[in-house]
């Protein structure tokens, strides 16, 4: 480790990464994570690899405090539910249906109207809260967690781009994201990708501009480029949704007959909805017009104790790549070649199996 001052463009990277980038710059040896097919594919659209880039953040994640407090006679505290009419801004499902004192269920906006209420006794339902709006609710304690997770993905991504920029790359592609549990209770959020640049100097990125990024495979990037699209960047939508297990939920889960579990449907829909909203917002920040290709989506559910009862959690994560029109599309050799493979179903077709 040297004590010499760190170059402007390498600030924020750990010393080991700085050393590696310096070394790579000096030696000119270019690594890549590409397969032979991938390397050939990107060369055909005027891109060449500059090196592999990496960025990671290790976090310990904790929930400050615990439980939302609904477990302890919240019904009395919120009696009548007057303040909650129409829902807390941002909560899905429109707040708690009428207090037991009135015996009537407030008509919540849209979503719930089609469902059976629990009847006068079981009429109360706890709201679903999403991380975008947790500050205004009893779930404020979960906000630091949700923010830490979305920041971790963003930071790991930015570190990777910093390396790419330092290598003089125009973009990174084939990003592989991983979330690993580290011994000792930490979580590692990491991104690994190949940095590439245009062989045509007129297409090089201006010095101040950030490199573009794509979670698409090199082959996909090549297909997109030859069809006149170029990745603009990666959008990530993360959301945490919470709901206290209410009477209706318990009743529906314990039933003998077939029934849709409204509360959980709502919870998962809310997590996905909020994550997709964030995804679209991020994508729009990257480009006003274009195509957002969602490359991965996942949903994890869990339970947390809340007093004697439980809080249900759902975390949704959507990752996508924004494609924008290519500034100088490579000459297209006619229309795409029509090939009907006589081989068994393609990987893409297999992916779509129920």
């Amino acid at each position, binding site marked *: 480790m040297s004590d010499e001052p760190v170059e402007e463009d390498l600030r924020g990277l750990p010393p080991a990464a700085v050393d590696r980038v310096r070394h790579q710059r000096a030696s000119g040896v270019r690594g890549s994570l590409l397969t032979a097919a991938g390397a050939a594919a990107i060369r055909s659209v005027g891109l060449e690899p500059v090196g592999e880039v990496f960025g990671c953040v290790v976090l310990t994640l904790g929930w400050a405090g615990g439980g939302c407090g609904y477990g302890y006679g919240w019904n009395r505290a919120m009696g009548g539910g007057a303040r909650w009419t129409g829902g807390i801004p941002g909560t899905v499902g429109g707040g708690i249906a009428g207090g037991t004192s009135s015996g009537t269920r407030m008509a919540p906006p849209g979503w719930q109207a089609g469902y059976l209420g629990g009847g006068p006794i079981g009429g109360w339902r706890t709201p679903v809260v999403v991380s975008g709006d947790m500050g205004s609710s009893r779930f404020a304690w979960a906000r630091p967690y949700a923010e830490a997770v979305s920041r971790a993905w963003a930071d790991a991504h930015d570190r990777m781009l910093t390396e790419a920029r330092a290598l003089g790359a125009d973009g990174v592609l084939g990003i592989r994201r991983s979330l690993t549990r580290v011994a000792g209770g930490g979580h590692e959020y990491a991104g690994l990708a190949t940095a590439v640049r245009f062989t045509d100097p007129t297409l090089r990125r201006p010095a101040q501009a950030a490199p573009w990024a794509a979670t698409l495979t090199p082959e996909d990037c090549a297909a997109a480029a030859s069809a006149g699209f170029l990745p603009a960047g990666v959008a990530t939508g993360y959301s945490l949704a919470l709901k206290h297990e209410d009477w209706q939920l318990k009743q529906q889960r314990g039933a003998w007959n077939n029934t849709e579990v409204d509360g959980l449907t709502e919870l998962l*829909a809310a997590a996905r909805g909020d994550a997709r909203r964030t995804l679209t917002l991020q994508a729009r920040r990257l480009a006003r017009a274009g195509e957002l290709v969602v490359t991965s989506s996942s949903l994890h559910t869990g339970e947390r104790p809340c007093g004697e009862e439980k809080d249900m959690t759902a975390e949704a994560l959507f990752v996508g790549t924004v494609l924008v029109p290519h500034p100088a599309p490579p000459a297209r050799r006619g229309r*795409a070649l029509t*090939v009907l493979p006589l081989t068994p179903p393609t990987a893409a077709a297999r992916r779509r199996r129920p």
Partner: protein
Amino acid sequence: MTQPPDSPDLAQVHLPPDAERRLHRMRAGEGTQLFTSDLSVNEFLLVREAGFRPVGLVLGSSVYHVGLQMARWGRNMEMDRLTQAMYHARELAMTRMEAEAHELGADGIVGVRLEIDFKEFGNDLAEFVAIGTAVVADEPPPTGNTWRNNRGLPFTSDLSGQDFWTLVQAGYAPLGMVMGTCVYHIAHRGPFAALATAGTNVEIEQYTEALYDARELAMSRMQAEAEALSAEGIVGVQLLSLPHRWGGHTTEFFAIGTAVRPLREDHVIATPQLVLPLTDGRW
């Protein structure tokens, strides 16, 4: 088929307010032309080539509590309550997805995935999800009218973008995903029956019958759905045995495929030629 022949009014399906706002913004365009799709790049390009424009990712989900049903230990029988649950939950998810597509003014949904995910919440709770990409056609079909099916719903198809392109090229259009399901309890064999056949090569008729029956039921239900759509045929059918979490003897037999109709008289495709790909089986 338990689905009524008359179509649901998609405008009446309740979507989460978040989804409604998002879809509304997307439809209004709101100064942006940004669309979301979960097609791979190749699929996306092929769908465009086929004359369709992706307008957005659509999704429907339902968390369902599957009821309890007792099976007679030694009897082959359909578990009708479980069958019903599998039907109903999938339908809820599909209808919500279709409603999202309707909201976007879509002509159809391609690349639909129908997934069942058992959550950590409990053994009898499963989430049924339908995800696909809503598309709008650039032009009405050559047969005139609309791309939507005879129930006025956007067409749905679980075919990949590649298969979809091929289908349209060959003069067919998808009508809708059709499915048939049957949850079947296969009888246990008593100790004497097991002893009698021990060490011999014989067909165990009881099992054959059960598996036969269950698959036939699932397939005929799928067929009935296709007939209701006045389809010419069903492509890409898969017949799956999904054990879920009911133990070894209770299994869901699930048939799913895409019902198609002809767009024109001839269905000619290019003459096959030999191509040697340099990739490892990846297209």
